[in-house]
């Protein structure tokens, strides 16, 4: 049998993943309305509901394992108002009973606010959220539950600072089925997190490569477009590097002995970077041409910078025009434009405040560059950018405290339900969850 697609469009299944097809499926999903419009038996309704929910909640977990995990006890909390508790000792609830002063509750529509419901049934899959792999996914360290599972299996996850959990039953790594306990801290290797959540790199041998099918396949076209975008960003980075070098060169004329060493070095660096981009990135022909031209033109500039009578402003100007040509007419972002403006303007025309802001901006850029450098050895697009279609999936449940800088999180407590909100993230409405809960009660 042909295996079904994981993110199919024909028979859509909602998954724990950040895939764009999944987003589309969630966006267009309708309430299954099980048991309202057909004549299914109760058993059939429950069967269908649990099937739907299991495609989302841990579809990689064997049903029998989940059945053992399932617990009919649903944890809930009630917010206790300190002021109210201080004013009353509880006897006010019984005061007046029997003497006719108490108000009988009215269950008409207006007073029964749906917000005041405690959605216990949405907690059906709460025990699943205890699993290490699912917690890693919920903490946004992996782009899907299956990827999170892989991270656990490959030893990229630590629990309480340990790679090995030694138990009575000897286990090597924090296995994906490890059930977190309140207070457990888990850490994921930051490199893996950056890989999982960053924009993926298209390898030159990728079948999606736009070279052959460019005209027909829009996916490929889009990939091309994206690569072009990333390429322009590379260039803007080149310009940022350019902007960084400016103070050296523009300061130079004031000093009598002109030291061209830094400029030479920077030109060399720029050329090397351009070469690196040319070799590793799939670029459009025009971009390739532009880069080659830049490398070619940078050579005489380099030799001129080496001469003793070279004027630094001239060289800077020429370099900036070269870099501006490299922009290829694509709308440069603020980084690029600021860089260009600085390099073409002579130092004298800038006021003090402008200079200061410029320096600040430069420092910012340098910091950014330091934190998020261009590094071709990484398996993701550098400088790092979040992957596409990530934002609509971005939420962190309250039972986790996540520290993104160190890719670590603490499992504070088990997920609970409170008035108007359940902490278990599920894309299905409450009716479906209720049927599934009834299925797992095993009275069928």
């Amino acid at each position: 049998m042909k295996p079904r697609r994981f993110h199919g469009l024909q028979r859509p299944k909602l998954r724990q993943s950040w895939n764009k097809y999944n987003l589309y499926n969630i966006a267009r999903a309708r309430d299954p309305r099980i048991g309202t419009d057909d004549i299914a038996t109760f058993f059939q309704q429950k069967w269908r509901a649990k099937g739907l929910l299991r495609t989302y909640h841990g579809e990689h977990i064997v049903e029998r394992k989940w059945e053992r995990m399932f617990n009919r006890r649903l944890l809930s909390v009630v917010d206790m108002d300190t002021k109210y508790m201080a004013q009353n000792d509880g006897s006010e609830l019984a005061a007046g009973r029997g003497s006719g002063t108490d108000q009988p509750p009215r269950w008409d529509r207006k007073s029964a606010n749906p917000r005041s419901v405690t959605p216990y049934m949405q907690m059906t899959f709460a025990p699943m959220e205890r699993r290490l792999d699912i917690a890693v996914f919920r903490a946004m360290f992996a782009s899907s539950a299956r990827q999170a599972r892989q991270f656990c299996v490959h030893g990229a996850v630590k629990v309480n600072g340990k790679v090995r959990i030694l138990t009575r039953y000897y286990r090597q790594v924090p296995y994906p089925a490890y059930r977190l306990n309140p207070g457990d801290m888990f850490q994921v290797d930051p490199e893996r997190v950056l890989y999982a959540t960053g924009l993926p790199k298209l390898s030159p041998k990728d079948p999606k490569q736009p070279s052959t099918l460019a005209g027909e396949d829009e996916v490929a076209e889009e990939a091309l477009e994206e690569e072009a975008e990333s390429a322009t960003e590379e260039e803007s980075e080149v310009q940022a590097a350019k902007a960084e070098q400016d103070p050296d060169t523009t300061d130079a004329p004031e000093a009598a002995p002109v030291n061209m060493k830094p400029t030479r070095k920077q030109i060399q660096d720029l050329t090397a970077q351009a070469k690196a981009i040319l070799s590793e990135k799939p670029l459009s022909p025009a971009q390739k041409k532009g880069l080659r031209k830049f490398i070619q033109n940078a050579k005489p500039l380099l030799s001129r910078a080496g001469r003793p009578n070279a004027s630094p402003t001239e060289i800077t100007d020429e370099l900036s025009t070269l870099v501006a040509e490299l922009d290829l007419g694509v709308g440069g972002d603020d980084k690029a434009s600021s860089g260009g403006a600085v390099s073409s303007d002579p130092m004298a025309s800038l006021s003090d405040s402008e200079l200061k802001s410029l320096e600040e901006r430069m420092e910012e850029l340098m910091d950014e560059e330091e934190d998020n450098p261009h590094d071709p050895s990484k398996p993701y697009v550098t400088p790092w950018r979040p992957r596409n279609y990530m934002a609509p999936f971005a939420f962190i449940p309250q039972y986790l405290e996540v520290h993104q800088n160190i890719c670590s999180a603490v499992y504070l407590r088990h997920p609970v339900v409170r008035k108007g909100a359940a902490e278990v993230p599920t894309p299905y409405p409450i009716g479906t969850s209720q049927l599934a809960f009834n299925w797992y009660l095993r009275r069928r």
Partner: protein
Amino acid sequence: MVVKIRLARFGRKNSPFYNVVVAHARTARNSKPLEVIGTYDPIPRADPYDDSGRLHKDIKLDAIRARYWIGVGAQPTDTVWRLLSMLGIMEPKYRNTEPRIPPVLPREALPQQNSP
């Protein structure tokens, strides 16, 4: 019948765990003993948040009962002997790390060798 203090293996495959038991010598290893006086976890473990690489083994033992059973003639097996000797309940049997002192020969033997 001889009463022994010995280990009874429990746990699972590749994860041994022992009860320290007092039992008749000819009864089966895991049969119900006269008394369980402790446990022995042979897998060395590290302390949490300790990176020194130093490992420890956990043993639970009722030393008072052990002394009593030794006092009434129970015979520990070698492994249990080793554990009990660590607590000073038994004299160490093997692996005496102290430098060996040659036994003093009887005084009469020396002149016999020297004479004629």
